[in-house]
């Protein structure tokens, strides 16, 4: 296990920023942490990256105990903060070399070259980062987070404030990192990004509301649903479906029937057969897939209420 936390909490002047967070993140997993502003995402990252101490609770990073083995934890973690935080008068190369030295990288020059080339910035290596675009700065910040080849990478809003093209470049790069078996802890507001990149997602609002794969969260919240489009819906057709014991709900929406069930792969053929026998003209059948946005908003609203 790369990250294990038990009841991790943090208070600021009496206010709970993070409340009893208990999570496990496996090695090589991309774990997305979602939550509204002020939900405690950045505080969580700061605690796990040994930047601030938890008020209570425990955590282990790759077996190292938070609080006791902070220096070892810092060595195996890379962090991309919300803002790039680069030294604007220094060049991209100088920025990266500084961090390579601080992380005791064996061959700093080679490592700097590797990441600047990988991110397409090698030709700009000697230019001060103050003149770089936001996207270029973010690339340098990502290179800085990776300069010591960390096994665990914290990415806090990696594509926030980037134009769509730069955001795509950064997302593509994170996808490449996934294939390198690095563990990535991703905090984001971008739900599409979270769904595309994360193996599992945790939703936080001071405390952890839910954690699962994106599909698991959908199923847990909305169950599974099939939509059947018919030429015409009659009460007899609705009754025909209600007679099936594996169906929990049937709702009509115009000429569409929304059917809640547990195993669409096995049960959809039975539904279609029953409808056809009852005289229905089936136009199409598909699974209803709720967006992660629906899942997220429902979870957060439920938590607020």
């Amino acid at each position, binding site marked *: 296990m790369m990250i294990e936390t038990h009841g991790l909490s943090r208070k600021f002047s009496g206010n709970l920023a993070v409340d009893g967070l208990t999570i496990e993140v496996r090695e090589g997993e991309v774990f997305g942490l979602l939550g509204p502003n002020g939900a405690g995402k950045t505080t969580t990252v700061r605690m796990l*990256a040994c930047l*601030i101490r938890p008020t209570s609770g425990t955590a282990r990073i790759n077996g190292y105990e938070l609080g006791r083995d902070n*220096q070892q934890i*810092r060595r195996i973690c890379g962090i991309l*903060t919300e803002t*790039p*935080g680069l030294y604007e008068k*220094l060049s991209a190369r100088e920025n990266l070399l*500084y961090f390579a030295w*601080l992380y005791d990288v064996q061959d700093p020059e080679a490592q700097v070259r590797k990441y600047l080339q990988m991110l397409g910035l090698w030709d700009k290596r000697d230019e001060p980062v103050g003149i770089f675009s936001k996207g270029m700065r973010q690339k340098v910040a990502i290179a800085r987070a990776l300069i010591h080849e960390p096994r665990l990478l914290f990415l806090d809003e990696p594509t926030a404030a980037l134009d769509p093209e730069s955001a795509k470049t950064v997302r593509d790069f994170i996808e490449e990192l996934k294939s390198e078996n690095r563990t990535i802890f991703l905090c984001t507001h971008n739900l599409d990004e979270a769904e595309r990149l994360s193996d599992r997602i945790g939703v936080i609002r001071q405390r952890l509301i839910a954690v699962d794969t994106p599909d698991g969260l959908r199923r847990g919240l909305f169950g599974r649903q099939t939509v059947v489009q018919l030429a015409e819906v009659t009460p007899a057709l609705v009754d025909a479906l209600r007679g099936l014991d594996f169906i929990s709900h049937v709702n009509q929406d115009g000429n569409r029937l929304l059917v809640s069930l547990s195993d669409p792969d096995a049960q959809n053929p039975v539904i279609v057969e029953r409808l056809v026998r009852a005289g229905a003209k089936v136009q199409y059948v598909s699974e209803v897939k709720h967006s992660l946005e629906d899942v997220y908003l429902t979870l957060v609203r439920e938590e607020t209420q």
Partner: protein
Amino acid sequence: MRKALIVFRKEWREILKNKLILYTIGVPPILLAILPLVMMYFMRNEPVDPEDLAMYAQFVAALPWLTPQEVVMYVLLNQFVLMFLMMPVVIPVTIASFSIIGEKEQRSLEPLLATPIRVTELLAGKTLAAVVPALLTTWAAFAIFLAGAYFLATPALLRALLSPMWWLAFFVMAPLFCILSVAIGVVISSRVNDTRVAQQIGGLIVLPVVALAMLQTFGKVLYTTQTFALASVVLAAVDVLVIRVGSNLFQREAILTRWK
């Protein structure tokens, strides 16, 4: 301390790209070295003003091995010891504020603190970056002054200028002032977000030095080796106090959660 040197080197890379800081480091020492020499050049053949002589009468009695003219020159040059001591006060606070507030402005502290550097190493690197140029320029200015004085001062006056008081000022008090200045720079930088504001506040710490110089100019006191030795002890105690305050503020947690 290897990491402190890495920080020192990076700080210097940044300083060398900042003209304002370079002027702050370079111009005052040159002026402070040249001004007393110019004064000495013009005073050495001029008769002593009777008013000056009256003001410094007690000093003439205290320094019987100098002529009255040499006493007046000595007292006036003594002020420059204190002026020279303004450099280790002003330069470090300027560099420290630039360095720490610069990190705040650029939001580079969080990724930096996430590295396996100890905060003591980080603070030591930043302190070195502020202290080394201040001391080198102070000593360089003093060396230029002494070289000029070798040609302009009478042998008796030169001997007086090379008294332990001057060595104490440059090799004990100057480093102590530097450390005090950096520690004050850290304290100010933790509460202020603008480099210029920090430098203006930091500039106020020269006022006690100026006040001490004024006391001698107006004939109220003549500083001696004993005075400077006592001042060094007091300064060392103040250093310890301010360093403790600065070190408490310069902690990962405090920087990220309590600094403005």
